[in-house]
């Protein structure tokens, strides 16, 4: 049980949430993406995407840039270096975790 808790601690709780995980995963694949693109790519609702993106922005994992293009508001999101590092760590921890769970314990 104690080993599980330790492994648990390695997963960043901010990323280890279904909606935020998909946002960070999609953003990790591009340099930056606007709100509409993220909306389509993640299949989240506008409210959910907005709320979860705000959390990631507050944590410093995602940078948000609001601008007007042709008088229409356009919000651009980009993973910060800290966000990319956190996601790399998360993926490594997740890989360790699943590798360990699939192997029989001795």
């Amino acid at each position, binding site marked *: 049980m104690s080993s*599980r808790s330790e*492994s*648990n601690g390695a*997963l960043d*709780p901010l990323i*280890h*949430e*279904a*909606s935020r*995980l*998909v946002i*960070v*995963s*999609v953003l*990790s*694949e*591009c*340099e*930056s*993406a*606007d709100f*509409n*693109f993220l*909306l*389509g*790519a*993640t*299949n*989240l609702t506008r*409210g*959910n995407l907005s*709320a*979860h993106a705000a959390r990631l922005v507050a944590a410093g994992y995602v940078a948000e840039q609001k601008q007007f293009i042709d008088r229409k508001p*356009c919000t*651009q999101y980009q993973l910060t270096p800290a966000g990319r590092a956190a996601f790399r760590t998360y993926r490594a921890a*997740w890989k360790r*975790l*699943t590798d360990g*769970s699939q192997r029989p314990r001795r």
Partner: protein
Amino acid sequence: MAANVESSSERPLSNLTDLQGTLAPVRAAEQAAWNVRRAIDAARGGPIWGSLACLVSSLAAAGILDSAGPKWLMIAWFGVFAFGLLGALAWLVKSHPAGEATVVDHFQANAARLKRPGYLALSLGFAFGCFFLWGWLSSLLPYSAMTLMLMLAILLMAGTYVARFCYFWFWQDLAFALCVLLAWMAYFYQPLLGGWALLALVAPLLAGVSVWLLRRRGLKLLRAVAAGGAA
């Protein structure tokens, strides 16, 4: 309303207590990321790789024309495809998917950085370095060794396209591999093939058409991702 959104969306994944339950969202996230990666690659990376296949196979075709045809035709042939690669790079820097959503990918950002003098000097330095290294090696090594190295490079390039096909599932990557192999095999076995070696000229044309199709397909895929459809 905000509280409702917060409570309904805030579903922490149950870590090790229910690994199967956790796997599904992780896989969904991986799938979404792969969809984006695939669409971006088809729209931006694919044409660059394809143009490279076009250029490399036209290099072989130019070599065949050099010995079997007039020199001006070889120069024109090579120039058209070099111009094509430059055009693809310029398009990459400027490109945005059509539609209301915009996404800037790593390719595009890197290509934009290439415009900065430092990156440009570095890239040109690398290209010229390779050119001079090849010249220096050819004066040092026997002809058979150089041919072997060239064959290995061609096989490596074709292998890269096959690997890309296995990963992204675009038939165009297989076409690029075929074009590179076809043109260079015709170049290597030109004495045996005789006039038939000129058929290698088809390879860059086929690669060019595949680039065009891949670019169109990639833009469609990007629009599909932005619209929430499966890519």
